[in-house]
């Protein structure tokens, strides 16, 4: 299997996982964003919220790294710049979900 096919399959599988997670997260975000500190922390302290938010972040950043690298492929011609842009993108998109997972598992009421 060539790399482009693998990339396409990863994109499609992650988008199928992402759709229900996005619906779940945005509904909950709307319901909690105005609430008090204690309510928000207790929401993120439950095991299902920790798990689903972590999964959302991992899949969303993975999906976005693949899609944004496609944008780089279309708009950046210089190979060196494209390489640097992709490496920066992958580093950032690995670090952010890792940090947020650590935060979520340290967050307790």
């Amino acid at each position, binding site marked *: 299997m060539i790399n482009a096919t693998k990339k396409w399959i990863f994109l499609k599988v992650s988008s199928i996982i992402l759709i229900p997670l996005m619906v779940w997260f*945005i509904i909950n*975000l*709307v319901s909690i964003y105005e609430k008090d500190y204690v309510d928000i922390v207790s929401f*993120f302290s439950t095991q299902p919220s920790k798990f689903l938010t972590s999964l959302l972040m991992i899949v969303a*950043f993975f999906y976005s790294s693949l899609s*944004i690298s496609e944008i780089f492929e279309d708009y950046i011609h210089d190979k060196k710049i494209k390489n640097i842009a992709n490496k920066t993108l992958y580093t950032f998109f690995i670090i952010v979900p890792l*940090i947020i997972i650590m935060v979520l598992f340290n967050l307790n009421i």
Partner: protein
Amino acid sequence: MENKNPLSPHIQIYSWNISLLISISHRIIGVINIVALTFVCLWIALLLLGETNYEYIKSFLQSFLGKFLILCLTWSFSFQILSEIRHLFWDFGYGFELITSKITGLIVIFGSFVLTILIYLIGKQII
């Protein structure tokens, strides 16, 4: 030799239509959503600073601008969800006919506003 080919997807050359609008919007909104999710991550991380410090963020989120930003985020999520579903149908070989493509494009645009209202009402437990 220097590559002088025009850059994809040639948005400055083709005349605008629904498919082109949805295609470029899908990309732009995808980038906006991941930037927004990064801010959501920051918001969650700031919870570690404790209740006293959170009061500033709370008052911002309760302001008009805060509410407006959440509404915009709801719309951009709604748009991406519907547009992604449209892409998945294409991947299974459905919806390539010109008229179907135009109709589904319009569904994505108008449906995103309907879905935003629906998500907001469900989130606020009004329905």
